[in-house]
Structures are given as structure tokens and as C-alpha cells.
């Protein structure tokens, strides 16, 4: 699931993130979401080592995403179009 899926689909961000879609976007990847991810991986046919690796990647992904999401606020307004 990507940020835009959450935002546009209004699928079930409440169920996953306990927030509306816009809010969910600002704090994707909280520690308390890890058990949810674990459950999703466990229900799939992933091996334990793969599940652990995926959980690490989840953390990296969401930390990176949040850093990017907050960084643009500082650089916003630059106009690089001709």
C-alpha cells in the first residue's frame, strides 16, 4: 500500500492507522503498526527470515518516507519550471 492508495482510496485507513487518510500520510510507519505488518506477513507464505527482513525494510521505508515528507516543507516554493 502506498501513501496515495491510502489517501485516495479511503480504503480503510482508520482500521490500519487509526486516523483519516490525510493524517495517516503524516505518520506512516509507527512502531505500533509493526504487529499489523507481522500479521500480514505471517498470513502469506513468507519464510521467517524473509518476514524479519521485510519488517526491517518496513521500518527503513517508513522512516525514509517520513523524512522526505517533512523535508519538502522547507524547500517548498522553489520554482524550477521555465
Amino acid at each position, binding site marked *: 500500500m502506498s501513501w496515495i*492508495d491510502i489517501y485516495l482510496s479511503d480504503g480503510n485507513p482508520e482500521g490500519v492507522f487509526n486516523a483519516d487518510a490525510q493524517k495517516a*500520510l503524516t505518520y506512516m510507519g509507527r512502531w505500533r503498526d509493526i504487529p499489523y505488518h507481522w500479521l500480514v506477513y505471517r498470513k502469506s507464505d513468507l519464510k521467517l527470515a524473509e518476514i524479519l527482513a521485510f519488517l526491517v525494510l518496513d521500518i527503513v*521505508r*517508513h522512516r525514509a518516507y517520513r523524512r*522526505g515528507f517533512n523535508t*519538502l516543507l522547507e524547500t517548498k516554493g522553489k520554482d524550477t*519550471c521555465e
Partner: protein
Amino acid sequence: MSVALPEEIHTVTQTNSSVIVASRNRHQQLEELINSVINLDPLPYELVIVDDASDKPIEESIQFKESDLRIRIFRNDPNQGPAKARNTGVHRSRGSILLFTDDDCIVHPQWAGILVKRLVTGSPDLGGIGGKVIARDTDIFSRYFEFHQILNPKPHDKMNPKRVPYLVTANCAIRKDTFMRAGGFDCNIPIAGGEDVALSLKILKQQLFLEREENAIVWHRFKPGLRNFHHTFFRYGLGGRYVVDRYLPL
């Protein structure tokens, strides 16, 4: 997997479709993409490559195989980002159907024909078609992208299960007039992240819809390594914030 394509679709693809690719310093991967485009059946009218200020110019660095495919290369210098590069490609293109893919992808032999068929036979309100993106490699990063279907937008309208909320530049087709009416890619986004979603939202604002075509396949190479993985999602976050602030709510 092979899809029957009527003769009319062969003709439209060969005379009216342009494949647009922006590239920067990925010559080997670009060469693999070009080889896969050369093998398309039907061939598109042309392949337009925009060199986004690669250190070594693409035109001088790649050995082009002899083929019937028209390959046209343009160069943006200095580097202006993938959004601007793709806009350059579109402005230089001659086809009325635009097929986008990335320089780190390779395409299925019927990719162009299948996308063209969907656009040509689809409703006039169809703003664009997104194909399926599959990971090329089997490392843990590729498997993660594949598991989460990061580049495959999920249908979100239960009444219209083929509709998707956005397209990705790795694999999509848009009519040129739709693209121009939308104003093209937002070149305020200088990175690879969010520019395709921004364009999609501008298309949706025209009261058009976007659909998915599972049979139009590209294989995408995801850069391995934790640093690259981090950088990818950092870019998505940057682009995501810009899109949220500028384009949402619709």
C-alpha cells in the same frame, strides 16, 4: 502470455504511438530497454529518449542495433529532472498515443500493442492506462517491492474494479491531447517521486478516469542495497508531500 491484436491495432501502434523515456547515467540499463523496445510486436512509431544531462551523452555511449525502430535522442543540459525530461520527450514526439516507461525497465513484446488497443477501443472518458510492473530480480529488495506491489496502484472503486487512482511512469499510456490538456508533468518536482501521481490527478480533474491493464507488462529493476532503498522512499516522501499540498483534495 499472448494477446490477439487486430490488424487495426498493429497499424495504429506503428503509425501513431511514441515511447517516451527519460534517462540519466544508466546507459547499460537503457541499452537493455532499447533492445526490448526493438523486439516489440507491433513496433511503435518511434522511441524518444531524453538524455537528462548524463555525464557521458547517451548518443555517444550506446551502440544501437540496426532495426526498423526510429530512435530519436534529445538532451536536456543541465539536468532538469525526469518530469521536465519527459515533457521534452512529449513535445518532440510525433505520435498521438504516448507510452511511458523508465530506463530501468524492459518491456513485454506485446506491451505497446496491448496499451494502444485499450486506449483506442476504450471510452472517450478514459484518461490513461496503467500496466503491470513486475520486479526483474529476486533479491530481498525486489521481493519487498513485489510483495507490496509498490508500483502497481490498487483499484479502489468496487463498482469499477479496473479503475486505478493514479498511473506510474514505469508503465502507462496516455493520449497526447489528454496529456497536453493536463499540462504535462509538473516540473516543480525535480526528483523521481510524485510527478506521475500529480499528472494523474490533473487528468482525473478533467472528469476522466484511469484504468489498469494486467497484460501490459514491464519488468522493473529495483536498485539493491539499503541506501538505495532508503533513498527511493525518501524521494517518494518528498514528492508525496508536494502532491498532497498542491493537488489534494481533488
